[in-house]
């Protein structure tokens, strides 16, 4: 049973358009992580969100955290092919609990 729910699980993006991945979590934790995993590769840390209202941006990716709604979003601006990967969110509750991942494919 997953405590962290991501949607969508699969996302086909068109280059140049904007998209959002949603992450709902179940605990009262106010700590949320985003990771990226390329096929057959390890996990790369993207963002660490440590408080309500936290917003972090890196390139075309922006993550935010709303602890009252228990929701984090990963917004992708003007998708490019290099962003094709699986994105995981994970909540912190004395350990990391991961969502199922969102597999992103960017098409021309």
């Amino acid at each position, binding site marked *: 049973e997953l405590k962290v729910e991501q949607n969508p699980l699969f996302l086909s993006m068109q280059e140049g358009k904007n998209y959002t991945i949603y992450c709902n979590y179940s605990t009262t934790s106010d*700590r949320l992580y985003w990771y990226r995993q390329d096929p057959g*590769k*390890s*996990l790369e840390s993207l963002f660490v969100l440590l408080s309500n209202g936290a917003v972090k941006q890196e390139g075309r990716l922006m993550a935010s955290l709303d602890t009252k709604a228990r929701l984090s979003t990963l917004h992708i601006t003007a998708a490019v092919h290099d962003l094709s990967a699986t994105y995981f969110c994970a909540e*912190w509750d004395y*350990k*990391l609990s991961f969502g199922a*991942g969102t597999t992103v494919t960017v098409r021309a």
Partner: protein
Amino acid sequence: DTAVSQTPKYLVTQMGNDKSIKCEQNLGHDTMYWYKQDSKKFLKIMFSYNNKELIINETVPNRFSPKSPDKAHLNLHINSLELGDSAVYFCASSQGQGASSKQYFGPGTRLTVT
């Protein structure tokens, strides 16, 4: 300079065998972890060690035994391997155990049990 390294990268073995996976980190971290990622990409923590002491032991069969000879190493020994053990096992490390302690993951070991 690999921060978190694992050996072997691939491991193919038969049911009933015993195997080990080794993990080393050169980041000077005090906390290390083992995660299992199954074929559907579900990722779940198995164990965590802080300064060689076991601090997290999730509901993992006791055929799995972690060993931390020092802060830089965390090995995973698996006895009597079963088909369901086939997965990718990731080692990770962090400085501290808290929520703000970013975890760095190793490249993974793909275990296939036939």
